[in-house]
């Protein structure tokens, strides 16, 4: 059983909703990303998504686009992102999902990625623009190295494809809350709940909801019907806002805790569960 499945099993046992923050590797710089991984784990993250910067992030809104640009200006590569995980993992035990567009992985090489990601302590890989129909060889290679291939489902995904995605996915299924690019929103739509219900009909995998989840209230709302909530742009926006602040890491940690504040149990349990 993968560590991600363990994590969700633990959440289920304690009746909590999971918290999955996202940051971009190398935003604002690699050393800070490493500290942020550690701080987010301490703040109560159950899983962390680490984004690999890409020049043409078509699925991302402006906030994560700018994070990618900052990281690329620093010359950050997939190799750097893996090194960042390896370093942070010496201090934390929270599962890490590598989150990338396909081309940087393709150039890195399939076997090399699987080997080096595993070695770095990565637990799962999510490729934004690699749908199951094109992913077979990659899915197999990742699974051979006990890395979970995570797939997205969207409100537009047909029932037929939900079944196929459920069969290829491992770890959890990432439900995109609405048609659109990543980015914080004032309100959550009902699309997400409907989608999660449809996923449950065809798959036993845990479901995390992301895209637009940006406040404590949104998290509470998502936990009502899903197993975990992914918070990306809201956190990246904080990093952007604080990028020159000397206490950036602490303040982003504080922001993450504020998202969880309405659910004290969440912070306490998570810290107890995952910090060595």
């Amino acid at each position, binding site marked *: 059983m993968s560590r991600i499945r363990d994590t969700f099993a633990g959440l289920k046992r304690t009746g909590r909703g999971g918290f999955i923050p996202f940051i971009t590797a190398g935003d604002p710089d690699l050393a800070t990303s490493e500290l942020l991984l550690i701080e987010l784990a301490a703040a109560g993250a159950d899983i962390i998504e680490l984004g690999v910067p890409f020049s043409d992030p*078509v699925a991302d*809104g402006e906030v994560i686009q700018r994070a990618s640009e900052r990281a690329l200006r620093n010359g950050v590569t997939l190799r750097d992102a893996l090194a960042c995980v390896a370093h942070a993992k010496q201090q934390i035990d929270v599962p890490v999902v590598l989150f990338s567009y396909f*081309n*940087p992985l393709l150039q890195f090489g399939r076997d090399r990625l699987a080997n080096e990601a595993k070695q770095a302590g990565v637990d799962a890989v999510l490729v934004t623009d690699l749908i199951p129909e094109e992913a077979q060889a990659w899915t197999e290679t990742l699974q051979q190295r006990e890395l979970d291939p995570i797939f997205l489902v969207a409100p537009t995904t047909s029932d037929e*494809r939900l079944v196929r995605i459920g069969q290829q996915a491992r770890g959890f299924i990432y439900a995109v809350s609405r048609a659109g*690019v990543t980015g914080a929103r004032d309100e959550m739509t009902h699309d997400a709940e409907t989608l999660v219900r449809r996923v449950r009909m065809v798959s036993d995998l845990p479901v995390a909801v992301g895209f637009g989840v940006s406040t404590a209230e949104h998290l509470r709302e998502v936990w009502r019907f899903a197993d975990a909530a992914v918070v990306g742009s809201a956190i990246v926006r904080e990093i952007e806002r604080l990028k020159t602040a000397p206490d950036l890491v602490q303040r982003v940690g504080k922001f993450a805790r504020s998202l969880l504040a309405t659910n004290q149990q969440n912070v306490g349990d998570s810290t107890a569960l995952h910090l060595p």
Partner: protein
Amino acid sequence: MQRSTITTSEPDENGHWGQFGGRYVPETLVAPLDELTKEFTRARHDAEFWRELDQRLRGYCGRPTPLFHGQRLTAHAGGAQIYLKREDLSHTGSHKINNAMGQALLSRRMGKRRIIAETGAGQHGVATATVCAMFGLQCIIYMGAEDMRRQALNVFRMRLLGAEVAAVNAGARTLKDAINEALRDWVTNVHDTYYLLGSALGPHPYPLMVREFQRVIGREAREQILSATGRLPRALIACVGGGSNSIGLFHPFIGDQSVRLIGVEAGGRADSLGEHAARFHPTAASGGGRIGVLHGTMSYVLQNDTGQIATTHSISAGLDYAAIGPEHAFLHDNGRAEYICASDAEALEGFTLCAELEGIIPALESSHAIIPAVRIARELPQSDAIIVNLSGRGDKDAQLVAELNIR
């Protein structure tokens, strides 16, 4: 590379030509792409659809376009007879209207009334704005801010036609960035929006569909050259950005093994990565010859060692793009088509030559094919013929060339 003996070039049902093509998109776009594929497949086998398209291309766009015997260009080359396929005479001034009209008819069948498109040089944007005006559809064109500067006339034309032109300020502010933004719009407004992609690239079914709508160029040219000379040409020459005018000309000749298919990429101002847009560039530091994924399709893509897409340069906005359509990648690898490049300087030379010798001002994109065509004609006997695709007219570029001449 070995010349191939392939006689057809058709993708599998998921849009793969060998390893190229396919669909590399965010999950949200799979459903609209499936819907589009279904509707296109239905239309493709519907004689009534093609009858209406043909009627509109004739009645509105001025097809068939002439195949013109460029006698002074031929005399200048001193070899094979040079024929020019006059796509510049199409309504809106380039071949782009063939595809825009076809896809507009499709969007009508699908009941989508909000049309988005990207544009580089502005030719596809103008063609799309035109068909949207004609059908009374809402039209939003994404265009890089740098391209808007280079092609100010086309921006004004699109606005005259009632389109909204949305400036894209990301990246190098050219075609690649405009496609990114169009894709983001589509993923957000997927329920009521039709993405009218302008070149033979992007996720399946676009490369196939755009080719099918551009094949009219090659079908006409084949008939015209046979009727003019009684035999097939020795070579076809066309510029290749994404590759829609070239694949449209080439495709009906793929089974004709005696006909060389020659694509001309933008050699830009230097051979190093970032200074050109030649995806098959043969030199070491050029970044050419690498397979990757950009904008939903697998093909040859200009990029750095770690898979970040490179910026490109061409004097012509329409060729200034990092990837080539997947069918070209396939035709390149199996040797059926050849790809060469022409520099900015050669394009300018071709631009002037064609204007002075034939009284035709070609688009800077199409101008890339002129000097290579002269060179190829020179090596062939006078009894042979070659066809150059004059994919667009150069009015839009006159200002830019005038400024260069002053400097």
